[in-house]
Protein backbone atom coordinates (compact mmCIF):
# COMPACT_ATOMS: atom_id res chain seq x y z
CA UNK A 1 0.00 0.00 0.00
CA UNK A 2 1.69 3.15 -1.19
CA UNK A 3 0.38 6.56 -0.23
CA UNK A 4 1.39 10.05 -1.17
CA UNK A 5 4.92 11.34 -0.62
CA UNK A 6 5.66 11.98 3.05
CA UNK A 7 9.33 12.89 2.65
CA UNK A 8 10.58 14.94 -0.28
CA UNK A 9 14.23 15.89 -0.56
CA UNK A 10 15.60 17.78 -3.51
CA UNK A 11 19.17 18.85 -4.17
CA UNK A 12 20.10 18.87 -0.48
CA UNK A 13 23.48 20.24 0.57
CA UNK A 14 25.02 20.23 4.02
CA UNK A 15 28.45 21.37 5.16
CA UNK A 16 29.91 20.90 8.63
CA UNK A 17 32.11 23.56 10.22
CA UNK A 18 31.60 26.02 7.42
CA UNK A 19 34.34 28.60 7.14
CA UNK A 20 36.88 26.78 9.28
CA UNK A 21 39.90 24.70 8.30
CA UNK A 22 37.89 21.62 9.26
CA UNK A 23 35.11 22.36 6.77
CA UNK A 24 33.58 19.16 5.48
CA UNK A 25 30.86 18.81 2.86
CA UNK A 26 28.70 15.88 3.92
CA UNK A 27 25.83 16.18 1.43
CA UNK A 28 26.23 17.36 -2.14
CA UNK A 29 22.89 17.46 -3.84
CA UNK A 30 20.94 14.50 -2.47
CA UNK A 31 17.46 13.66 -3.75
CA UNK A 32 14.97 11.30 -2.19
CA UNK A 33 11.24 10.66 -2.09
CA UNK A 34 9.57 8.44 0.47
CA UNK A 35 5.89 7.58 0.22
CA UNK A 36 3.59 7.00 3.13
CA UNK A 37 3.70 3.42 4.37
CA UNK A 38 6.91 2.50 2.57
CA UNK A 39 9.90 0.75 4.07
CA UNK A 40 13.09 2.33 2.75
CA UNK A 41 16.67 1.19 3.28
CA UNK A 42 19.62 3.55 2.96
CA UNK A 43 22.97 1.91 2.34
CA UNK A 44 26.42 3.24 1.69
CA UNK A 45 29.78 2.93 3.35
CA UNK A 46 31.13 5.03 6.23
CA UNK A 47 31.31 8.71 5.32
CA UNK A 48 28.83 8.52 2.45
CA UNK A 49 26.56 11.04 4.14
CA UNK A 50 23.74 8.74 5.20
CA UNK A 51 23.76 9.67 8.87
CA UNK A 52 23.80 13.40 8.02
CA UNK A 53 20.84 12.75 5.73
CA UNK A 54 18.67 10.96 8.28
CA UNK A 55 19.29 13.66 10.86
CA UNK A 56 17.52 16.08 8.55
CA UNK A 57 14.37 13.98 8.83
CA UNK A 58 13.49 15.28 12.29
CA UNK A 59 15.24 18.60 12.11
CA UNK A 60 18.34 17.75 14.15
CA UNK A 61 20.22 19.20 11.22
CA UNK A 62 18.75 21.93 9.04
CA UNK A 63 19.47 22.10 5.31
CA UNK A 64 22.14 24.50 4.02
CA UNK A 65 20.38 24.59 0.68
CA UNK A 66 17.86 22.46 -1.15
CA UNK A 67 14.34 21.38 -0.41
CA UNK A 68 13.44 19.20 2.58
CA UNK A 69 9.74 18.65 3.16
CA UNK A 70 8.85 16.23 5.91
CA UNK A 71 5.17 15.45 6.36
CA UNK A 72 4.20 18.85 5.01
CA UNK A 73 6.76 20.83 7.06
CA UNK A 74 9.28 22.72 4.92
CA UNK A 75 12.60 22.64 6.78
CA UNK A 76 14.20 25.36 4.73
CA UNK A 77 11.80 27.86 6.31
CA UNK A 78 13.29 29.67 9.30
CA UNK A 79 10.43 29.19 11.72
CA UNK A 80 9.02 25.72 11.89
CA UNK A 81 7.21 23.76 14.55
CA UNK A 82 10.20 21.63 15.51
CA UNK A 83 8.28 19.92 18.30
CA UNK A 84 5.58 18.77 15.91
CA UNK A 85 8.26 17.52 13.55
CA UNK A 86 10.07 15.55 16.23
CA UNK A 87 6.74 14.12 17.38
CA UNK A 88 5.94 12.87 13.90
CA UNK A 89 9.39 11.55 13.09
CA UNK A 90 10.92 9.13 15.59
CA UNK A 91 14.67 8.75 15.16
CA UNK A 92 16.43 5.82 16.82
CA UNK A 93 20.20 6.13 16.88
CA UNK A 94 22.79 3.39 16.75
CA UNK A 95 23.42 1.80 20.18
CA UNK A 96 20.24 3.35 21.61
CA UNK A 97 20.79 1.40 24.82
CA UNK A 98 23.17 4.18 25.85
CA UNK A 99 20.38 6.72 26.07
CA UNK A 100 18.41 4.90 28.79
CA UNK A 101 18.72 7.01 31.92
CA UNK A 102 15.79 6.09 34.14
CA UNK A 103 16.02 3.24 36.62
CA UNK A 104 12.75 1.59 35.66
CA UNK A 105 11.73 0.46 32.20
CA UNK A 106 8.27 2.03 32.43
CA UNK A 107 9.73 5.39 33.46
CA UNK A 108 12.21 5.45 30.63
CA UNK A 109 9.66 4.60 27.96
CA UNK A 110 7.22 7.17 29.33
CA UNK A 111 9.81 9.98 29.28
CA UNK A 112 8.87 11.15 25.78
CA UNK A 113 5.08 11.01 26.20
CA UNK A 114 5.31 12.92 29.51
CA UNK A 115 7.43 15.54 27.74
CA UNK A 116 4.54 15.91 25.30
CA UNK A 117 2.44 16.92 28.29
CA UNK A 118 -0.02 14.07 27.92
CA UNK A 119 -2.24 13.01 30.82
CA UNK A 120 -1.05 9.94 32.71
CA UNK A 121 -3.85 7.73 31.35
CA UNK A 122 -2.88 8.46 27.79
CA UNK A 123 0.80 7.98 28.61
CA UNK A 124 0.04 4.59 30.14
CA UNK A 125 -1.92 3.50 27.07
CA UNK A 126 0.89 4.57 24.77
CA UNK A 127 3.56 2.84 26.81
CA UNK A 128 1.45 -0.30 26.89
CA UNK A 129 1.03 -0.20 23.14
CA UNK A 130 4.70 0.56 22.49
CA UNK A 131 5.92 -2.23 24.78
CA UNK A 132 3.51 -4.62 23.16
CA UNK A 133 4.76 -3.62 19.70
CA UNK A 134 8.36 -4.46 20.56
CA UNK A 135 7.42 -7.64 22.39
CA UNK A 136 7.80 -6.56 26.02
CA UNK A 137 5.02 -7.50 28.42
CA UNK A 138 3.74 -4.32 30.07
CA UNK A 139 2.63 -5.69 33.43
CA UNK A 140 5.66 -7.90 33.79
CA UNK A 141 8.34 -5.47 32.61
CA UNK A 142 7.30 -1.92 33.46
CA UNK A 143 8.69 -2.01 37.02
CA UNK A 144 11.88 -3.88 36.13
CA UNK A 145 15.24 -2.19 36.49
CA UNK A 146 16.79 -1.08 33.23
CA UNK A 147 20.37 -2.01 34.10
CA UNK A 148 19.58 -5.70 34.45
CA UNK A 149 18.44 -6.04 30.84
CA UNK A 150 20.33 -7.83 28.09
CA UNK A 151 21.59 -5.90 25.06
CA UNK A 152 18.68 -7.00 22.89
CA UNK A 153 16.09 -6.10 25.53
CA UNK A 154 17.65 -2.68 26.11
CA UNK A 155 17.37 -1.99 22.44
CA UNK A 156 13.70 -2.93 22.54
CA UNK A 157 13.17 -0.55 25.46
CA UNK A 158 14.84 2.25 23.51
CA UNK A 159 12.71 1.53 20.45
CA UNK A 160 9.58 1.49 22.59
CA UNK A 161 10.62 4.88 24.01
CA UNK A 162 10.41 6.30 20.50
CA UNK A 163 7.26 4.39 19.49
CA UNK A 164 5.45 5.77 22.54
CA UNK A 165 5.64 9.17 20.85
CA UNK A 166 3.39 7.61 18.15
CA UNK A 167 5.46 8.85 15.23
CA UNK A 168 4.21 8.58 11.66
CA UNK A 169 7.72 7.97 10.40
CA UNK A 170 10.22 5.72 12.13
CA UNK A 171 13.89 6.26 11.29
CA UNK A 172 16.43 3.68 12.47
CA UNK A 173 20.22 3.83 12.28
CA UNK A 174 21.72 0.33 12.17
CA UNK A 175 18.88 -1.20 14.18
CA UNK A 176 20.48 -4.61 14.72
CA UNK A 177 24.22 -3.91 14.96
CA UNK A 178 25.86 -6.10 17.58
CA UNK A 179 22.81 -8.24 18.35
CA UNK A 180 22.92 -12.03 18.34
CA UNK A 181 20.95 -13.92 15.63
CA UNK A 182 17.88 -14.53 17.76
CA UNK A 183 17.52 -10.96 19.04
CA UNK A 184 18.22 -9.68 15.54
CA UNK A 185 15.51 -11.77 13.93
CA UNK A 186 13.01 -10.82 16.63
CA UNK A 187 13.69 -7.13 16.18
CA UNK A 188 13.46 -7.36 12.38
CA UNK A 189 10.08 -9.06 12.67
CA UNK A 190 8.84 -6.31 14.98
CA UNK A 191 9.97 -3.61 12.57
CA UNK A 192 8.33 -5.45 9.71
CA UNK A 193 5.01 -5.66 11.50
CA UNK A 194 5.16 -1.98 12.48
CA UNK A 195 5.53 -1.19 8.82
CA UNK A 196 3.10 -3.67 7.33
CA UNK A 197 0.43 -3.85 10.06
CA UNK A 198 0.60 -0.48 11.83
CA UNK A 199 1.34 1.18 8.48
CA UNK A 200 4.25 3.19 9.89
CA UNK A 201 6.63 4.63 7.32
CA UNK A 202 10.01 3.08 8.09
CA UNK A 203 13.42 4.30 6.96
CA UNK A 204 16.52 2.45 8.09
CA UNK A 205 20.25 2.59 7.57
CA UNK A 206 22.00 -0.76 7.42
CA UNK A 207 25.24 -2.47 6.57
CA UNK A 208 23.61 -5.84 6.67
CA UNK A 209 22.40 -6.71 3.20
CA UNK A 210 20.37 -9.72 4.34
CA UNK A 211 18.43 -7.30 6.50
CA UNK A 212 17.92 -4.88 3.61
CA UNK A 213 16.70 -7.69 1.40
CA UNK A 214 14.30 -8.87 4.11
CA UNK A 215 12.74 -5.53 5.07
CA UNK A 216 13.00 -2.90 2.36
CA UNK A 217 10.50 -2.05 -0.35
CA UNK A 218 13.02 0.27 -1.91
CA UNK A 219 16.69 1.02 -1.41
CA UNK A 220 18.74 4.19 -1.77
CA UNK A 221 22.49 3.86 -2.19
CA UNK A 222 24.55 6.81 -0.95
CA UNK A 223 28.11 7.61 -1.98
CA UNK A 224 30.12 10.82 -1.58
CA UNK A 225 27.20 12.79 -0.24
CA UNK A 226 24.77 11.88 -3.02
CA UNK A 227 22.14 9.30 -3.77
CA UNK A 228 23.76 7.34 -6.57
CA UNK A 229 21.35 4.48 -7.02
CA UNK A 230 17.82 3.65 -6.04
CA UNK A 231 15.29 0.97 -6.69
CA UNK A 232 13.87 -2.23 -5.32
CA UNK A 233 16.31 -4.59 -3.61
CA UNK A 234 16.19 -6.74 -6.74
CA UNK A 235 17.19 -3.78 -8.93
CA UNK A 236 20.02 -2.88 -6.60
CA UNK A 237 21.49 -6.27 -5.92
CA UNK A 238 21.52 -7.21 -9.61
CA UNK A 239 23.65 -4.20 -10.55
CA UNK A 240 26.94 -5.83 -9.72
CA UNK A 241 29.16 -3.32 -11.45
CA UNK A 242 27.73 -0.38 -9.51
CA UNK A 243 27.69 -2.25 -6.23
CA UNK A 244 31.40 -2.77 -6.59
CA UNK A 245 32.02 0.80 -7.60
CA UNK A 246 30.29 2.10 -4.48
CA UNK A 247 31.75 -0.58 -2.22
CA UNK A 248 28.39 -2.01 -1.29
CA UNK A 249 28.36 -5.54 0.01
CA UNK A 250 25.75 -7.99 -1.23
CA UNK A 251 23.84 -10.63 0.70
CA UNK A 252 25.93 -13.80 1.05
CA UNK A 253 23.50 -15.61 -1.26
CA UNK A 254 23.90 -13.08 -4.04
CA UNK A 255 27.67 -13.23 -3.74
CA UNK A 256 27.61 -16.95 -4.45
CA UNK A 257 25.24 -16.53 -7.38
CA UNK A 258 27.45 -13.85 -8.93
CA UNK A 259 30.39 -16.18 -8.78
CA UNK A 260 28.35 -18.88 -10.53
CA UNK A 261 27.32 -16.41 -13.21
CA UNK A 262 30.96 -15.46 -13.75
CA UNK A 263 31.73 -19.13 -14.23
CA UNK A 264 29.22 -19.22 -17.06
CA UNK A 265 26.17 -20.65 -15.31
CA UNK A 266 22.87 -19.14 -16.31
CA UNK A 267 21.61 -18.00 -12.90
CA UNK A 268 19.31 -15.16 -11.97
CA UNK A 269 21.27 -13.03 -9.49
CA UNK A 270 18.14 -11.30 -8.22
CA UNK A 271 17.49 -14.21 -5.88
CA UNK A 272 18.58 -13.04 -2.48
CA UNK A 273 16.62 -15.01 0.02
CA UNK A 274 18.12 -18.33 0.95
CA UNK A 275 15.32 -20.41 -0.53
CA UNK A 276 15.34 -18.43 -3.78
CA UNK A 277 19.08 -18.94 -4.09
CA UNK A 278 18.65 -22.63 -3.46
CA UNK A 279 15.93 -22.76 -6.16
CA UNK A 280 18.25 -21.06 -8.61
CA UNK A 281 20.96 -23.60 -7.96
CA UNK A 282 18.51 -26.47 -8.29
CA UNK A 283 17.28 -25.00 -11.56
CA UNK A 284 20.81 -24.76 -12.89
CA UNK A 285 21.62 -28.28 -11.86
CA UNK A 286 18.45 -29.85 -13.23
CA UNK A 287 17.66 -28.19 -16.53
CA UNK A 288 19.39 -27.97 -19.88
CA UNK A 289 21.85 -25.20 -19.08
CA UNK A 290 24.24 -27.75 -17.78
CA UNK A 291 25.02 -29.11 -21.20
CA UNK A 292 26.03 -25.71 -22.54
CA UNK A 293 28.41 -25.34 -19.70
CA UNK A 294 29.89 -28.77 -20.16
CA UNK A 295 31.16 -27.91 -23.62
Amino acid sequence: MRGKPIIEIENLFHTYMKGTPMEHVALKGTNMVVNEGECIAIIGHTGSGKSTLIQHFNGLIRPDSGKVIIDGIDLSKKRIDIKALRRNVGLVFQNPEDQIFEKLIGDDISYGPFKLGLPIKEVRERVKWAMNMVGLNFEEMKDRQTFALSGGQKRKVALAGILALKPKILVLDEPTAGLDPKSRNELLDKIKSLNKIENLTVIFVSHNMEEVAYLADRVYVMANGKDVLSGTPIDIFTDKEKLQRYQIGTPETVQALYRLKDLGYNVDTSAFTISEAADEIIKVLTNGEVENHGK
Partner: protein
Amino acid sequence: MASEFELSRNITIGQYVPTGSFIHRLDPRIKLLVFTILVLAIALNTSYVGNALGLLLSIYLFWVSKIPVSYGLSGIKPAIPFIIILAVLQLIFQGNVFSGGTVFFEYGFILITSESIRLVIVSAVRFVEIILLSSVLTLSTSTTELTHAIQSLLSPLKKIKFPVHEISLIITIAIRFVPTFAIEMEKMMKAQASRGADFGSGEWWRIIQRTKDMLPIIIPLFNIALSRAEDLILAMESRCYTPGNERSAYSVYKALVGDYIVLIIGLLLSLLLLFYPFPY
Protein backbone atom coordinates in the same frame (compact mmCIF):
# COMPACT_ATOMS: atom_id res chain seq x y z
CA MET B 1 23.71 26.97 9.61
CA ALA B 2 25.44 25.61 12.66
CA SER B 3 23.55 22.86 14.33
CA GLU B 4 22.53 23.37 17.91
CA PHE B 5 24.08 20.01 18.70
CA GLU B 6 27.53 20.33 17.20
CA LEU B 7 29.91 19.60 20.02
CA SER B 8 32.67 17.37 18.83
CA ARG B 9 33.71 19.62 16.02
CA ASN B 10 33.96 22.68 18.22
CA ILE B 11 36.30 21.29 20.79
CA THR B 12 39.60 23.07 20.78
CA ILE B 13 41.51 21.03 23.31
CA GLY B 14 45.03 20.52 22.10
CA GLN B 15 44.39 22.50 18.95
CA TYR B 16 47.84 22.06 17.58
CA VAL B 17 48.81 24.47 14.77
CA PRO B 18 51.90 23.04 13.12
CA THR B 19 53.86 26.01 11.77
CA GLY B 20 57.21 24.36 12.34
CA SER B 21 58.54 27.42 14.13
CA PHE B 22 61.45 27.52 16.54
CA ILE B 23 58.96 27.38 19.41
CA HIS B 24 57.34 24.27 17.91
CA ARG B 25 60.67 22.51 17.71
CA LEU B 26 61.69 23.25 21.29
CA ASP B 27 62.02 20.30 23.60
CA PRO B 28 58.49 20.06 25.06
CA ARG B 29 59.87 19.47 28.55
CA ILE B 30 61.77 22.72 28.48
CA LYS B 31 58.86 24.52 26.89
CA LEU B 32 56.49 23.36 29.62
CA LEU B 33 58.96 24.10 32.41
CA VAL B 34 59.73 27.61 31.20
CA PHE B 35 56.03 28.27 30.61
CA THR B 36 55.07 27.16 34.11
CA ILE B 37 57.72 29.23 35.83
CA LEU B 38 57.01 32.28 33.69
CA VAL B 39 53.28 32.11 34.37
CA LEU B 40 53.88 31.82 38.10
CA ALA B 41 56.36 34.70 38.03
CA ILE B 42 53.92 36.87 36.09
CA ALA B 43 51.06 35.91 38.40
CA LEU B 44 53.07 37.03 41.41
CA ASN B 45 54.44 40.25 39.91
CA THR B 46 52.43 43.37 40.75
CA SER B 47 54.57 46.11 39.20
CA TYR B 48 53.83 48.12 36.05
CA VAL B 49 57.27 47.61 34.59
CA GLY B 50 57.33 43.92 35.37
CA ASN B 51 54.01 43.36 33.65
CA ALA B 52 54.98 45.53 30.71
CA LEU B 53 58.02 43.30 30.33
CA GLY B 54 55.83 40.25 30.58
CA LEU B 55 53.44 41.60 27.99
CA LEU B 56 56.26 42.36 25.56
CA LEU B 57 57.70 38.91 26.12
CA SER B 58 54.40 37.13 25.49
CA ILE B 59 53.72 39.14 22.33
CA TYR B 60 57.26 38.36 21.17
CA LEU B 61 56.82 34.63 21.82
CA PHE B 62 53.50 34.61 20.05
CA TRP B 63 55.10 36.30 17.08
CA VAL B 64 58.07 33.91 17.01
CA SER B 65 55.74 30.91 17.05
CA LYS B 66 54.26 32.10 13.70
CA ILE B 67 50.75 31.32 14.89
CA PRO B 68 48.10 33.57 13.29
CA VAL B 69 47.29 36.55 15.50
CA SER B 70 43.60 35.68 15.23
CA TYR B 71 44.18 32.70 17.55
CA GLY B 72 45.52 34.98 20.26
CA LEU B 73 42.74 37.52 19.76
CA SER B 74 40.07 34.84 19.84
CA GLY B 75 41.20 34.07 23.39
CA ILE B 76 41.09 37.71 24.47
CA LYS B 77 37.98 38.97 22.70
CA PRO B 78 35.29 37.10 24.63
CA ALA B 79 36.99 38.10 27.86
CA ILE B 80 36.82 41.85 27.33
CA PRO B 81 33.44 42.30 29.07
CA PHE B 82 34.72 40.27 32.03
CA ILE B 83 37.89 42.34 32.18
CA ILE B 84 35.77 45.49 32.30
CA ILE B 85 33.42 44.12 34.94
CA LEU B 86 36.36 43.01 37.03
CA ALA B 87 38.03 46.39 36.67
CA VAL B 88 34.89 48.23 37.75
CA LEU B 89 34.38 45.93 40.71
CA GLN B 90 37.99 46.30 41.76
CA LEU B 91 37.81 50.09 41.44
CA ILE B 92 34.67 50.31 43.54
CA PHE B 93 35.34 47.75 46.22
CA GLN B 94 39.07 47.24 46.45
CA GLY B 95 40.20 50.79 47.17
CA ASN B 96 39.94 50.25 50.90
CA VAL B 97 41.97 47.07 50.74
CA PHE B 98 44.70 48.34 48.44
CA SER B 99 44.72 51.80 49.88
CA GLY B 100 48.39 52.76 49.62
CA GLY B 101 49.72 55.61 47.51
CA THR B 102 48.06 58.79 46.39
CA VAL B 103 44.33 59.19 46.87
CA PHE B 104 42.66 60.26 43.62
CA PHE B 105 39.02 60.06 44.52
CA GLU B 106 36.95 59.48 47.60
CA TYR B 107 33.18 59.26 47.94
CA GLY B 108 31.40 57.29 50.63
CA PHE B 109 32.99 53.88 50.76
CA ILE B 110 34.52 54.29 47.32
CA LEU B 111 38.20 55.06 47.47
CA ILE B 112 40.41 55.19 44.41
CA THR B 113 44.13 55.32 44.96
CA SER B 114 47.21 54.84 42.87
CA GLU B 115 47.52 51.38 44.41
CA SER B 116 44.00 50.31 43.50
CA ILE B 117 44.52 51.60 39.96
CA ARG B 118 47.71 49.61 39.76
CA LEU B 119 45.75 46.55 40.84
CA VAL B 120 43.15 47.10 38.12
CA ILE B 121 45.66 47.60 35.34
CA VAL B 122 48.00 44.82 36.41
CA SER B 123 45.10 42.33 36.69
CA ALA B 124 43.93 43.12 33.17
CA VAL B 125 47.38 43.07 31.59
CA ARG B 126 48.33 39.93 33.47
CA PHE B 127 45.30 38.28 31.97
CA VAL B 128 46.35 39.16 28.44
CA GLU B 129 49.90 37.97 29.09
CA ILE B 130 48.78 34.60 30.39
CA ILE B 131 46.27 34.15 27.55
CA LEU B 132 49.01 34.71 25.00
CA LEU B 133 51.51 32.51 26.80
CA SER B 134 49.11 29.60 27.21
CA SER B 135 48.06 29.95 23.57
CA VAL B 136 51.68 29.71 22.51
CA LEU B 137 52.12 26.61 24.63
CA THR B 138 48.99 24.72 23.59
CA LEU B 139 49.05 25.76 19.94
CA SER B 140 52.70 24.84 19.43
CA THR B 141 52.77 21.57 21.39
CA SER B 142 50.76 18.43 20.64
CA THR B 143 48.93 16.87 23.56
CA THR B 144 51.15 13.83 23.27
CA GLU B 145 54.25 15.97 23.66
CA LEU B 146 52.66 17.71 26.62
CA THR B 147 51.94 14.51 28.49
CA HIS B 148 55.45 13.25 27.81
CA ALA B 149 56.79 16.52 29.09
CA ILE B 150 54.73 16.32 32.28
CA GLN B 151 55.90 12.78 32.84
CA SER B 152 59.54 13.59 32.42
CA LEU B 153 59.38 16.81 34.45
CA LEU B 154 57.79 14.94 37.32
CA SER B 155 60.23 12.05 37.09
CA PRO B 156 62.65 13.38 39.74
CA LEU B 157 59.75 12.94 42.15
CA LYS B 158 60.00 9.18 41.62
CA LYS B 159 62.69 9.26 44.30
CA ILE B 160 60.10 10.22 46.89
CA LYS B 161 57.79 7.48 45.55
CA PHE B 162 55.55 9.89 43.70
CA PRO B 163 53.69 7.86 41.04
CA VAL B 164 54.91 9.77 37.98
CA HIS B 165 54.06 7.21 35.29
CA GLU B 166 50.64 6.65 36.76
CA ILE B 167 49.80 10.35 36.86
CA SER B 168 50.92 10.90 33.29
CA LEU B 169 48.92 7.86 32.20
CA ILE B 170 45.84 9.39 33.83
CA ILE B 171 46.42 12.59 31.87
CA THR B 172 46.90 10.63 28.64
CA ILE B 173 43.65 8.75 29.19
CA ALA B 174 41.81 11.97 29.97
CA ILE B 175 43.02 13.66 26.79
CA ARG B 176 42.47 10.52 24.74
CA PHE B 177 38.81 10.23 25.73
CA VAL B 178 37.67 13.85 25.40
CA PRO B 179 36.93 13.65 21.66
CA THR B 180 35.40 10.19 22.04
CA PHE B 181 33.04 11.36 24.77
CA ALA B 182 32.24 14.51 22.79
CA ILE B 183 31.04 12.38 19.89
CA GLU B 184 28.99 10.20 22.26
CA MET B 185 27.57 13.27 23.92
CA GLU B 186 26.49 14.77 20.65
CA LYS B 187 24.70 11.56 19.72
CA MET B 188 23.12 11.45 23.16
CA MET B 189 21.77 14.99 22.95
CA LYS B 190 20.34 14.29 19.53
CA ALA B 191 18.84 11.01 20.69
CA GLN B 192 17.17 12.61 23.69
CA ALA B 193 15.99 15.56 21.61
CA SER B 194 14.41 13.01 19.29
CA ARG B 195 12.29 11.78 22.16
CA GLY B 196 11.14 15.20 23.18
CA ALA B 197 13.83 16.47 25.54
CA ASP B 198 14.67 20.13 25.58
CA PHE B 199 17.63 21.41 27.48
CA GLY B 200 17.14 24.56 29.46
CA SER B 201 13.81 25.99 28.53
CA GLY B 202 11.18 26.32 31.23
CA GLU B 203 11.17 28.96 33.92
CA TRP B 204 14.53 30.38 34.73
CA TRP B 205 14.07 30.33 38.48
CA ARG B 206 13.12 26.68 38.82
CA ILE B 207 16.53 25.38 39.78
CA ILE B 208 15.52 21.81 40.45
CA GLN B 209 13.44 21.46 37.28
CA ARG B 210 16.17 22.92 35.12
CA THR B 211 18.76 20.60 36.61
CA LYS B 212 16.49 17.62 36.09
CA ASP B 213 16.09 18.60 32.44
CA MET B 214 19.81 17.97 31.99
CA LEU B 215 19.82 14.54 33.61
CA PRO B 216 18.83 12.63 30.44
CA ILE B 217 22.23 13.53 29.00
CA ILE B 218 24.34 13.89 32.13
CA ILE B 219 23.50 10.45 33.53
CA PRO B 220 24.28 8.62 30.28
CA LEU B 221 27.50 10.64 29.89
CA PHE B 222 28.81 9.42 33.23
CA ASN B 223 27.48 5.91 32.65
CA ILE B 224 29.23 5.73 29.29
CA ALA B 225 32.46 7.06 30.80
CA LEU B 226 32.39 4.63 33.71
CA SER B 227 31.41 1.62 31.63
CA ARG B 228 34.18 2.42 29.17
CA ALA B 229 36.51 2.54 32.12
CA GLU B 230 35.55 -1.05 32.94
CA ASP B 231 36.47 -2.15 29.41
CA LEU B 232 39.70 -0.19 29.45
CA ILE B 233 40.76 -1.73 32.74
CA LEU B 234 40.49 -5.21 31.21
CA ALA B 235 42.27 -4.13 28.04
CA MET B 236 45.15 -2.58 29.99
CA GLU B 237 45.51 -5.56 32.27
CA SER B 238 45.52 -7.83 29.23
CA ARG B 239 48.41 -5.82 27.89
CA CYS B 240 50.44 -6.48 31.02
CA TYR B 241 49.98 -3.07 32.60
CA THR B 242 50.96 -3.18 36.28
CA PRO B 243 51.01 0.08 38.24
CA GLY B 244 54.33 0.68 39.95
CA ASN B 245 56.30 -1.58 37.62
CA GLU B 246 59.33 -0.20 35.83
CA ARG B 247 58.41 0.52 32.22
CA SER B 248 60.47 1.32 29.19
CA ALA B 249 59.69 4.39 27.09
CA TYR B 250 59.03 4.56 23.37
CA SER B 251 59.17 8.32 22.95
CA VAL B 252 62.43 9.87 24.06
CA TYR B 253 63.39 13.53 23.86
CA LYS B 254 66.85 14.93 23.77
CA ALA B 255 67.46 18.54 24.70
CA LEU B 256 69.89 20.38 22.41
CA VAL B 257 72.07 23.41 23.08
CA GLY B 258 69.34 25.77 21.86
CA ASP B 259 66.90 24.23 24.32
CA TYR B 260 69.27 24.82 27.20
CA ILE B 261 69.79 28.42 26.16
CA VAL B 262 66.02 28.97 26.16
CA LEU B 263 65.83 27.34 29.55
CA ILE B 264 68.48 29.63 31.00
CA ILE B 265 66.94 32.77 29.52
CA GLY B 266 63.51 31.71 30.75
CA LEU B 267 64.81 31.08 34.25
CA LEU B 268 66.64 34.40 34.37
CA LEU B 269 63.55 36.29 33.20
CA SER B 270 61.41 34.55 35.79
CA LEU B 271 63.88 35.37 38.55
CA LEU B 272 63.90 38.95 37.39
CA LEU B 273 60.09 39.15 37.51
CA LEU B 274 59.94 37.44 40.87
CA PHE B 275 62.66 39.23 42.80
CA TYR B 276 63.74 42.45 41.14
CA PRO B 277 62.21 45.45 42.96
CA PHE B 278 60.80 47.34 39.97
CA PRO B 279 60.39 51.04 40.86
CA TYR B 280 56.93 51.31 39.25
